[in-house]
């Protein structure tokens, strides 16, 4: 009972602190903007812990955060092995191949208005489909190991990336293209000096969307078969054994990997498109 009371009390105090902070004159400062969501996050964890302990929820339904943290700390070698298998091998390989080939195809069809008019709607259409469903096919074609996961990732990121790049290549203004024409610039000069730089905000938009898609693809593809390692494999087998602390630890790895991956791409974007109004801030 005392756990429940503690959780309630903590929640009320944290709520009061957050309301005070949010409505104070300091609410626009960096520190407060960071503190408020952190307090909220910590509160969720404390309430979770308190409720689970207070109501004695069995760990096969919801383990407390402390148990998950312990499991995380004691399973580092396994988590690292799974991370390497799913993220480094499956996700990253597929991401680089998929995004790279999409940009290459976008440039290849750039000169053909006909192909663009055909591929853009088809690409948009395919980007909305549940491509994740190709996972069993890829596993059949490329085997259980990471190659099939990379193939699913390629299929998932290719079309969003293609659509974004094609749109980006059309993003330069007519006036800027006229300017290049008054210099008698060649096609490649215009592409390299004007249209590719102007496309960068769109290309990075695609790259950012693709980080999440890639990780989803690699994890879900492992549900259809994988060697005895990998984040998706671990989740599905540990769920079967009702070892939920391990599942949560694996989910924590996936969350960290996903946000760090996205953050890294966003950081590169900041460096490359520093000139764009959205980045000048």
């Amino acid at each position, binding site marked *: 009972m005392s756990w429940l009371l503690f959780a309630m009390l903590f929640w009320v105090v944290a709520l009061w602190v957050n309301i005070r902070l949010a409505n104070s004159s300091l609410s626009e400062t960096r520190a407060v903007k960071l503190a408020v969501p952190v307090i909220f996050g910590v509160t969720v964890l404390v309430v979770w812990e308190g409720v689970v302990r207070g109501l004695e929820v069995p760990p096969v339904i919801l383990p407390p955060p402390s148990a998950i943290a312990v499991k995380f700390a004691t399973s580092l070698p396994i988590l690292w092995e799974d991370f390497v298998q799913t993220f480094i091998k499956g996700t990253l390989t597929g991401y680089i191949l998929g995004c790279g080939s999409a940009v290459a195809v976008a440039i290849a069809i750039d000169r053909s208005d006909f192909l663009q008019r055909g591929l853009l709607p088809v690409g948009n259409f395919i980007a909305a489909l549940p491509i994740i469903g190709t996972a069993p096919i890829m596993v059949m074609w490329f085997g259980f190991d990471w190659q099939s996961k990379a193939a699913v990732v390629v299929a998932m990121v290719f079309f969003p990336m293609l659509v974004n790049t094609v749109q980006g290549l059309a993003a330069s*203004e007519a*006036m*800027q293209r*006229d*300017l*290049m*024409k*008054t*210099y*008698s*610039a060649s096609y490649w*000069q215009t592409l390299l*000096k*004007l249209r590719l*730089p*102007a496309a*960068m905000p769109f290309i990075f938009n695609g790259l950012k969307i693709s980080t999440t898609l890639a990780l989803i693809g690699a994890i879900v593809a492992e549900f259809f078969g994988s060697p005895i390692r990998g984040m998706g494999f671990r989740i599905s087998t540990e769920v079967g054994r009702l070892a939920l602390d391990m599942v949560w630890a694996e989910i924590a790895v996936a969350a960290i990997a996903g946000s760090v991956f996205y953050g890294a791409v966003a950081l590169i974007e900041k460096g490359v*498109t*520093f*000139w*764009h*109004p959205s980045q*000048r801030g």
Partner: protein
Amino acid sequence: MTSDAVIAARDLGLTFQTNDGPVHALKDVNLQIARGDFVSFIGPSGCGKTTFLRVVAGLEEPTAGQITVNGMSPDEARRARAYGYVFQAAGLFPWRTIAGNVKLPLEIMGFTRAEQEKRVKKVLQLVDLEGFERKFPWQLSGGMQQRASIARALAFDADILLMDEPFGALDEIVRDHLNEQLLKLWARTGKTIAFVTHSIPEAVYLSTKIVVMSPRPGRIHDVIESPLPRERPLDIRDTPEFLEVAHRVREGLRAGHAYEG
């Protein structure tokens, strides 16, 4: 056609085919621009003044008549880098510094690295932008951006400058200042300038020759040779001679039904 005509148009016409039928953007345009002239094109929107400039630049193909630039077709003149073009907006590339923007045409045209540096320095001095080389366009005011775009057009030393309402988006105080600077630049470099505007004082203040145009179809209504001296301080705009020319331009616009548009 006289031999010293830099730009010569004869019976020039341009018709766009649209869904609402053909639009005559230009019709029967005859004009000669001599070396060192400062020619303004004035008229309401739709009178074809910008279209004419784009035809000179080889950005549009005329559908009738002939036009030569330095004795060549506009396309040949473009490839020979006969002119620099200044658009209505500065149109600087935001990912390049001011120096980088001015360098852009030089890179495309294959100047050596050393020559690029030398020319960037020279033209930025011409437009009073020394010290801003490393700034990005969006860190500069609108007037400074437009000066940088003029420097960019001057960088490769073409002897014709085509300017399409370059100061149209700026406020009047900045515009006065830039007009004055442009006249100085013109005096120093001796370039031939074709200048599109919809401001009567601007046209009269700047030009040796004012081309009054009227819409539907776009054609030349009147060509007014300015009696003003080449040396023009800003307060020349209060003299009777200036007001007289301005009055003639206004009359021309009215007679061309410019105010109905």
